[in-house]
């Protein structure tokens, strides 16, 4: 497993916790917060993609 895959696996684990466990109540505060959480998650993936690419 290369570095990019390790990072992706770590991010995947974090995302699972945030999406599929009771922790999801955190981003369910308002009608727009799920969208904000979703966009944040995409931004993190894009940032990691950029870092992987630069490396």
């Amino acid at each position, binding site marked *: 497993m290369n570095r*990019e895959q390790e*990072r992706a696996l770590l991010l995947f684990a974090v995302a699972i916790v945030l999406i599929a466990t009771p922790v*999801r109540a955190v981003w*369910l505060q308002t*009608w727009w917060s*799920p*969208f904000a959480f979703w966009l944040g998650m995409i931004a993190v993936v894009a940032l990691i993609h950029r870092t992987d690419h630069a490396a």
Partner: protein
Amino acid sequence: MQLNHFILFFLAVTLLGLYILGSEVVERSPRWGRLGRNRFSYALALGVYATTWTLFGSVGFAATEGYDFLAIYFGVTLSCIAIPFLWAPVAELVDRYRLGSIADVFAFRYQSRTLGAAVSLFMVAGLLPYIALQLRAVADGAAILVGEEPSEELGSVYALLLSAFAVTLGVRYADGRAHRPGLIATLAFESLFKLIALLVVGGAVLFAVFGGFRDLNEYLQARPDLVENIVNPVMGDSWIALVFVTFCAAFLLPRQFFVAFVQRPGPRSLKTARWALPLYLFAINLPVPILYWAGRDLAAPGVRPDVYVLVAVQSSPALQTLAFLGAVSAASAMILVSSIALSGMVANYLVPRFGPSPESLLTRWAVFRRSTIVGVVVAGLLIHFTLPRTRSLVDLGLASFVAVTHLLPGLLGALFWRRATRAGVLAGLVVGASSWALLTASPLFGVELDVSRLYALFGFTDPAARGPAIWLSFTAHAFVFMGVSLLTERSPEERNAAEACREPRVTRLLQVPDSAESLQERLTSYVGKRIAIEEIYQAATAADVYWPPRDRPELLRLITELEGRLSERIGPLAARTYVQGGRPVRADALAERLRAFRELDSRYATGSQRNSPAQAARRYLSQLMSELPMGVCTVDDHEEVVIWNAQLERMSGLDEDDICGHPMHDIPDPWWPLFDELAHQPTGSVIEREYDLGDGKIELRAQTATIPGQSEEGRVFVVEDVTALRQLERHVAHKDRLSSIGTLASGVAHEVGNPLTGILMVAKNLATDPGAADAAERLGIIVDEAQRIHGIVQSLLTFSRRDETPVGLQAIPVAGVVRNAAELAKLETDGCRIDLDLSVDAPAMASPDGLTQVLVNLLNNATQACSSGATVYVRTRVENGSVLIDVDDEGPGIPEELSARVFEPFFTTKAHGQGTGLGLSVSRQIVERFGGSLRYEPRQSGGSRFTITLQAYEN
């Protein structure tokens, strides 16, 4: 404006016609073809995931289950995060073995056509409700817009339209070739269109119905129950099951698999899709809650939430039409790609079992594929008529999604579990498909089973929730798969295929024919001479190869094309057999070698032989390869990249993981054109090219050699970054030119001084007698003399200019360049004469500035070596297709013991301070970069002869 069926149908036909036209333009035009190879187009094309379910169904879903509808997209986002470790290995496998569908993956890994057939059958059964969903959504939408009740006749009309579209484009793209830019571009346009349609409709509703964001907030603050109703379901039981199901669907749905892996335009595309696909889905879902709240307030009682999108803009026929066209667009794309993907599975695995032989499939494949595409769409239409109208779009869509989750265990087994067996996968699939049929599919047709006691047994208290049916059937499948796999043995073929799936980068199961004749013979033995010739001819045309292929790269290109075309029609196993002979997949030498290698590794790793010479040598070679200061790329006999070392990663910015295991022609520019050019040249060939890689220009020197093997032959490409070296050379050459100018300085002063004196004298005379009768004649003398000075100055300027394009060769007239150089050299001849014999004036490949510099150097050396009154001879001639220039002098010559060193830098026989010792060294470098040579030999009659040999220009 009152909408009617004619207008809607006309607009739908126009939209689909534009898609067909656009795909043709992209397919035919190299300029527009780039659109289909762009990684952003690819990410947009993956947006085919968003169907009418997204356009209409999500609002209906939100109405009944709140933000649970977001699970359908959060699952995809999660799946995209997993791209590097889950999608990427699948992509590698698909690329490596030219697999065309998920059924191909199963058939290949588990070496079983039966398994391929089982997967195909299950997918057809699972996907038909989804196709029915598309037809229903479009027909119901049209009925709402014209104010009628949805009818089966209306459904049939739109079903026929969408079928015609799917067949027209489907047959175009079901021709056995992967990476079709026309298809990717069409899907990308379609994704953009539906995104824009939904955003425009959502934006219009936001401002027209709610008055903007602030007012929407106030509206929701006044109705907290609305927010609670939409947010609370996410904490319920269905959420996790839905996320899981869509996690699988994102890449296992046949249409997603087809676009994501089979049509993937290049190695980098998947990386971009990691964030671009979720971003697209995010954008297209933004208007959904707004449309739901608006539709809820505006809809009359009894209107199904699935059509709230149209209700929310009921005051604007234009916006209604836009939303409807968005749905037509989404449905057409979904049906198009699904029917291509499913028809491939049906053709490869279902029909050959019961219908025509592979040979006859080859001859009638176009008709056959058309029929299967039509068959798939018609079957969807029948389901559409059969299903009760009470079922929501979400119910229909989810049934298909749940079906594809049952592909996950077998796929994970293929990628990561060598112990998985075909019996295990088959048993798991049977259990999974049966439980899916009972728990998920049968309720769609009104057959409700009482499973509450079964659910209660496993602790599920709410039988109406979506989770229990999904978890129970999947868990049962997974347990049976693992249990049976552990209890059964793998066949030798399965073992080899398992190795190939785990290490697709290094394992090769292919035995490539070594000549065009053996390829034709092999294919003939299976399908007969006439069909074999036809197939090879078509593949050769598509691959742009003349028969017979002139070298191995061309043969490999033809084989790849031929196998791809056959694979699409008769499946990868049969295609491989036809092209490579023997059993479909057999014990392969390389797979065996790999296994032996691994066993050796593990033995060494356990201790006793850790430091054996073989292991040390391997480690040394591996380290050497990675630390070599030059780029190394090796490709195997199938033109797929095996090694892409660290230096090449640094030079190119391309990751080893993105390149290794992929076909050579997938390497992005400029690397693929560079290697392709080299691959067509003999071993030892060297080429130099300059490229702009974005961060600046880079000069590369590349050479190649073949790697001979017993049964296969590869190639190695070695690439050096010579940018700094060439800059240094240019700097040295410039210094040398300046040095030569210094040498010429006294001659220049003399040459300029003479005409200047003349000008001065004539001008003085004119000043004292401006009205002289011969004033015009005297002015003419001034002009002539001034022009002479101007010529000398121009020659010097040209000579001293820094040459920035050293490798830019051109055909130049040799005699003209020699004449110019001689003019310059005559500025400082020390009383020598330069005799030119330029009767042969053949064009040669060189740069004029570089050749002038070399000649001036040689002539200066010659004149300095001669005594006063001696002659320097310059002669041009043609010999063996080369142009030669001899520079002979009548000097004392070079002592024999020193003659070997004349081209060494800083070596000089001149007195201290009279020469840098760089002239001949630089001159030889320049000539060698022209592809020529510079050599010295003593003259028979005394003196020296320097001969420049240049490549003659061949028109």
